[in-house]
């Protein structure tokens, strides 16, 4: 019976210490995850920005206006005036 009380106290002390350390660990982890999330969000924003920019660029390059300007101006293409229908 003599050792029961000190043992209980020691056990409690150990438990308190562990839970305290656990909490510290948790808080640290939360912070790390939070900063990672912030980082990822910034990255996502940057990627979204690039995506929309590329989307617009692709749209501009593939637009009928652009295709016509290139076809007529740079490649000297014409709309056929005389239509020839070829039958096999």
């Amino acid at each position: 019976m003599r050792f029961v009380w000190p043992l209980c106290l020691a056990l409690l002390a150990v438990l308190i210490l562990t839970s305290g350390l656990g909490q510290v660990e948790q808080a640290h982890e939360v912070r790390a995850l939070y900063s990672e999330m912030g980082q990822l969000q910034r990255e996502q924003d940057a990627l979204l920005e690039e995506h929309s920019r590329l989307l617009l660029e692709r749209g501009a390059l593939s637009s009928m206006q652009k295709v016509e300007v290139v076809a007529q101006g740079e490649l000297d293409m014409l709309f056929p005036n005389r239509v020839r229908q070829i039958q096999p």
Partner: protein
Amino acid sequence: MRPWRHYTLLVVFAACVVGVCVRVVYLGVSDRDFLQGQGDARSIRKETIPAMRGVILDRQGEPLAVSTPVFAVWTDPSRAQLGVAEVERLASVIELEPEALRDRLTAAADREFVYLKRRAPWATAQRLKAAKFNHVYLQPEYRRYYPAGETTAHVVGVTNIDDEGIEGSEYAFNRQLQGRHGGKVVLKDLKGSTIRDLDYVTAPVYGQDLSLSIDLRLQFLAYRELKSAVASHGATSGSLVMVDADSGQILALVNQPSYNPNNIPEQSRGMRNRAITDAYEPGSTIKPFTALAALESGRYRSDTLIDTAPGYFRVGQKLIQDPVNRQNISLAESLAKSSQVAFAKVALDLEEMAVFDVLRRAGIGDFVGIGLPGETTGFMTDSQLQYPVVQASLAYGYGLSVTPLQLAQAYLSLASYGEKIPLSIMASAPDETLRERVFDERIVQEVLSMMEGVTAPDGTAPGAAVPGYRVAGKTGTARLVGPEGYTDERHVAWFAGLVPVEQPRLVMVVLINEPNAGLSGGGAVAAPVFGRVAQRSLRLLGVLPEVQIADVEHVESVPVALEGRG
């Protein structure tokens, strides 16, 4: 004396101690929530995380409206207290005139919130972050770009400065596009910079993409032709609606005047989506339906002769006349030449409700309901059909009004050989069960072959002909109502048609409002727009020609040996 003073002092001190204790308990227990709240109110801020708006795409996946992340720059002038040099530095960072910035700051000196710049691009925001101004904050937001600009302005619409749709599809499908803002709770220090995020309350739900049935290539073609026609005829406005004849999906919907959705202030004139909001008298474009009613009666065929001599015809007080006396002409010829007299006579010969009933089944007078804001139903009533004048004028398109969209809906029922197909602006496959047969297939076929005469070299609209394809259509010219009744000099020019006749792919309605440069009728003004747009659209869509072109070259197919393969 002494004990008295001693005890008094003791009592006073004891009272102080008790007082302090009571106060501590009071503050710590009963006032706790209030004080904590006040403290938090000074340091804890709720911030919204804006949701990115969905992209609007055309049927091929080309972007029509795209959001890109930008920043709003704002400040709290009551705390910021920026010096002259700092204001100038800030102005150069966010690219504003120093005077303008100073004026804005002094005007809002006693406020706690003022935007310095909206929609600052990414690079500006990075520079501002690096420059570290006190109490100058960045708030993420999104800005909308419309790559096709004025070409798609009416269909796509615009958003306001707060990223909410206010026109067109942006407005109509705002809920789907918008998504839901998220929120987070942050802790701020005295200078207003965020120390740390306390709680991530809700993640933003990004908006869904929206695919429209519009084909940007055809839209562009249609827009360019309409714009040049409106300009060259000095017209006040114009509209064009192009519909896919198989599905009822709208491929192009353009109006003139238009506006640049990327830069809206100061322009508001061109913002109306006239093709769906403005109704005009359709004039002769209604005649194919009168012919259809005549065929349905069983008493007419396309070669039934109608006596139009002497070129005019009196109904009550009204004199209906043709430009020349055409004598005895067939129903088909009456349509090709657009004879008022013939159609008035046919209409009066039919049941009172016959033409009205056919128009009704074709969808005239009904709400089309494609979902874009501002759509109107035009006007058509049967309340005065007992008067011969009203009955006759309905037959050639007066006494009712339709929007170009409604007329496209009506002509779609001809293109589908008698089925009414609901129009749609969405790229998703339309509901096939909503199709409804409204006209007999053979009767429609006969009407279409009569309508082919309109685009023949001797018809009223040879300009709408497309080499290699059979075009069925009808012109219309309706005088506009001025303060003194119908005017002779102001009118609208219509052309409505479909192509190719055998297996229709496109239905198109062209409306030019108040053309004034010499030529005036639908045949001279609107039909060439149809012809040009149809020709290039059919080529883009890869529709095979149905008729052989005059000079066909017969080429023997030579088997070509493929070398260097395998």
